[in-house]
């Protein structure tokens, strides 16, 4: 049927069919609207009215979710909501009666606009102009975070005055730099992640005067200790070398806190807590860098548990926004299948990244005898605006010292 030409006829038919006359009251159905030719159903997310509420034509009465995103649903009659027939959250076919409104204005019926004809064409243009022109209201700190981390705020529902997005609206939601831009499409996600990595790394290499130092750290004791400790442990109690490395790094940072913090507004701001970001490479490509919080306060077992937790959630995409934003230093770990050394790129505004190479066996001279020794090259990339070589050297040696007594970590 050609909608436009049959417009008038439809309007009359619809009015006859949907309006009931109960005594003197005229009741109209409120139906799931069609927001485009391809739409067959919509999800009722929230009612903004309840039975007994007066409404007038044009009021927003519900939020519905469609392929085009969340849409504010308007009412086309002036009256009082008399019945709510479906409770959120529920998916309903287009045309389903969702609620009823009792008309209050005499002659209201004559002005009734058929639902279909109003909603079909204009909605595309409405949602387009909405996207193009409106920047969501957001507090300064949220706007800064959005800019730094390339968050897309248009999908975030604000809880502040006038619907402004506040800090709390970000935490707890799944917004993060990896899935912020268009979540439903894997290719877009990958693109967005590449973009985020590209911008952070370019910024780092453009702005941060990196310098690099490397120390071969003897890991015999640490590996022996791990072997003894893990001997009888079930896989879920198993401790990986990385846990010791993290703990040792945290302890060395306590001694040399000038590597732990941020370079902001032309000065170094020391971070009170030690949140270590861990580079996790994703199977589909790209990486995430979730932080383990307060590593200095965790036991080795707790650190291991935290590593397990973030690596599982990191790969399944369930990281919390705080974990992706508050690392105070980063660690990149090549693991046993990686390379001997890794010279990391600092993640701004942090001032250092520690790169752990793979453990390798090397001959060493001890008292004139050749012995087998297990060694790892640890590389520190540091921001020379904040850190000097002597400090870096002290830090690496402190790290090495920590790893010689794994039982004390």
């Amino acid at each position, binding site marked *: 049927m050609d909608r436009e030409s049959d417009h008038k006829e439809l309007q009359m038919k619809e009015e006859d069919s949907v309006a009931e006359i109960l005594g003197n009251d005229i009741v109209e159905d409120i139906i799931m609207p069609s927001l485009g030719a391809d739409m067959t159903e919509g999800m009722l997310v929230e009612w903004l009215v309840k039975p007994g509420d007066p409404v007038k034509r044009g009021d927003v009465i519900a939020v519905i979710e469609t392929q085009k995103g969340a849409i504010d649903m308007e009412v086309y009659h002036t009256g009082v909501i008399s019945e709510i027939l479906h409770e959120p959250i529920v998916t309903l076919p287009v045309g389903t009666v969702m609620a009823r409104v009792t008309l209050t204005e005499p002659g209201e019926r004559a002005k009734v606009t058929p639902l279909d004809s109003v909603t079909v064409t204009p909605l595309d243009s409405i949602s387009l102009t909405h996207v193009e022109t409106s920047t969501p209201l957001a507090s300064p700190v949220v706007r800064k975070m959005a800019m730094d981390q390339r968050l897309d705020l248009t999908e975030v529902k604000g809880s502040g005055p006038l619907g402004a997005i506040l800090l709390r609206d970000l935490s707890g939601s799944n917004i993060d730099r990896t899935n912020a831009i268009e979540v439903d499409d894997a290719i877009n996600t990958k693109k967005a992640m590449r973009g985020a990595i590209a911008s952070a790394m370019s910024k780092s290499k453009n702005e941060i005067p990196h310098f690099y130092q490397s120390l071969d750290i003897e890991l015999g004791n640490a590996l022996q200790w791990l*072997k003894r400790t*893990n*001997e*009888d*442990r*079930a*896989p*879920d109690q*198993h401790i*990986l*070398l*990385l846990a010791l490395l993290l703990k040792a790094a945290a302890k060395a940072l306590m001694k040399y806190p000038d590597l732990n913090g941020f370079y902001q507004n032309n000065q170094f701001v020391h971070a009170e807590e030690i949140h270590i970001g861990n580079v996790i490479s994703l*199977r589909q490509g790209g990486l995430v860098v979730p932080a383990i919080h307060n590593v200095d306060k965790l036991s080795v077992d707790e650190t291991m548990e935290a*590593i*397990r937790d973030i*690596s*599982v959630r990191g*790969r399944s995409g369930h990281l919390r926004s705080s974990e992706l934003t508050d690392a105070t230093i980063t660690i990149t770990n090549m*693991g*046993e*299948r990686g390379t001997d050394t890794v010279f990391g790129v600092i993640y701004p505004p942090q001032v250092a990244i520690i790169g752990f190479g793979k453990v390798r066996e090397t001959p060493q001279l001890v008292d004139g005898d050749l012995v087998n020794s297990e060694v790892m090259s640890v590389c520190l990339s540091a921001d020379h605006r904040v850190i000097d070589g002597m400090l870096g050297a002290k830090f690496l040696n402190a790290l090495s010292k920590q790893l010689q007594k794994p039982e004390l970590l």
Partner: protein
Amino acid sequence: MKIQEIKVVLMKAIQEIAPEIELEDIDVDEDLRDECDLDSMDFLNYLIEIKKLTGVKITEGDYQNVNTFKKMVAYLEQKTE
């Protein structure tokens, strides 16, 4: 457990970590970590998954007996007899 069952369980454990891997992608005589591109954390999670599914606890001492797909099948077959 029958060999067939063990293979199903192993694939399930592997796909939990690496969903894109199929049985025919794996050379059963080669190191599984290389075959499936698993790091040490992945391998640990694979062992945890196996423990969940079969109850068999594999400790570090036995790692060299389970490092290929084939060896793992034999190991589990023996342990679940």
